[in-house]
């Protein structure tokens, strides 16, 4: 679909044309909302709220950025407001370890013999199953990290685009992404043995 044409149609009063935008971007908005908000019953309402807000502010969208970036920004801010109202800590009671401790935490979880005991096929199957463990670990990340991780890995936005969504410099996005992944790795290796993680 040509976004510009659809947006113009919607602005002329054709509300049903807006359905095309919702269909095209409901996954993008869903990723953000479902990742940032844990409460299942609120998620669908929030997705609706994002699209209604976007519709009401569509006149202000001048194609200076991608529609996906603009929608992500609305989704992020809507989730943030929701979490603030619910008094969910945004930056986390999850204390980040110092780099020194990180290295220690990441040390020596698996032995050489452990790795050599699996064939390449076994390892591939194990990798697939470890997905749900990782998804649970992501749930425990601070909301801002969840947003960055989702926008980068799932929606494949660039650092600059994510920076625009979160209103922070691209460099900060990069360092937050690094910290989020490091934190995830630490949490995984802290809470799971090699067998649990890869089985």
């Amino acid at each position, binding site marked *: 679909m040509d976004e510009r044409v659809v947006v113009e149609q919607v602005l002329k009063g054709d509300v049903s044309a807006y359905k095309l935008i919702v269909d095209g971007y409901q996954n993008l908005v869903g990723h953000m909302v479902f990742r940032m908000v844990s409460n299942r019953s609120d998620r669908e309402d929030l997705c609706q709220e994002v699209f209604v807000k976007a519709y009401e502010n569509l006149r202000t969208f001048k194609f200076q950025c991608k529609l996906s970036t603009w929608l992500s920004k609305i989704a992020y801010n809507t989730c943030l407001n929701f979490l603030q109202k619910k008094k969910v800590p945004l930056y986390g009671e999850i204390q980040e370890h110092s780099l020194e401790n990180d290295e220690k935490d990441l*040390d020596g979880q698996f032995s050489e013999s452990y790795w050599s005991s699996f064939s390449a096929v076994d390892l591939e199957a194990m990798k697939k199953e470890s997905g749900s463990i990782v998804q649970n670990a992501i749930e425990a990340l601070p909301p801002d990290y969840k947003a960055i991780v989702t926008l980068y890995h*799932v929606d494949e936005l660039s650092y600059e685009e994510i920076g625009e969504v979160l209103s922070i410099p691209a460099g900060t996005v990069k360092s937050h992404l690094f910290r989020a992944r490091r934190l995830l790795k630490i949490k995984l290796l802290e809470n799971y043995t090699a067998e649990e993680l890869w089985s």
Partner: protein
Amino acid sequence: MELSHLSEEMLQACAEGEQPDEPSAEHLKTCAHCRQQLEVSRMLLRSLQAGPDIHLPVDFSWKVVANIEERTESRKAWREWLMYGALGLCCILITLYYTGSNFTFEMFSSWMADVWRAKSSGEWSARDLNTLFGNGYLYLAYVAFLLWIYDFLDQRFVQKGHRHA
């Protein structure tokens, strides 16, 4: 020279597909710990790309459109009430004017000055209210009437034109 374990930054970069520099590549060949760390990083990246499971109803987009239409209707109704209210106010004030005192430019200036002073101080005394609703009703009538005309033209021509364009 023996290289210490690869940094987390290097491991993440390698997991994303960047080629390690020569000493790091050599180190990876011989260090099981770093290979294991790299494997965990790769597994992590693959899992991150999977994204959360989204459970939205199949008719989600229709629901959004219905929600928007409902809100638009509700606003339209409210706007109509406002329009009729403004028109009613105009009628009342104009009637009051023609049955009350004659107005002069001095009255207008004095009324504006009083309203401005009250607005600036944020205190509305009984005299100010008397000024506003006494001598000033004519100007309120003008403002309300202009608003009504504007809204009428907007509804009748501008928005109708958009709807049918």
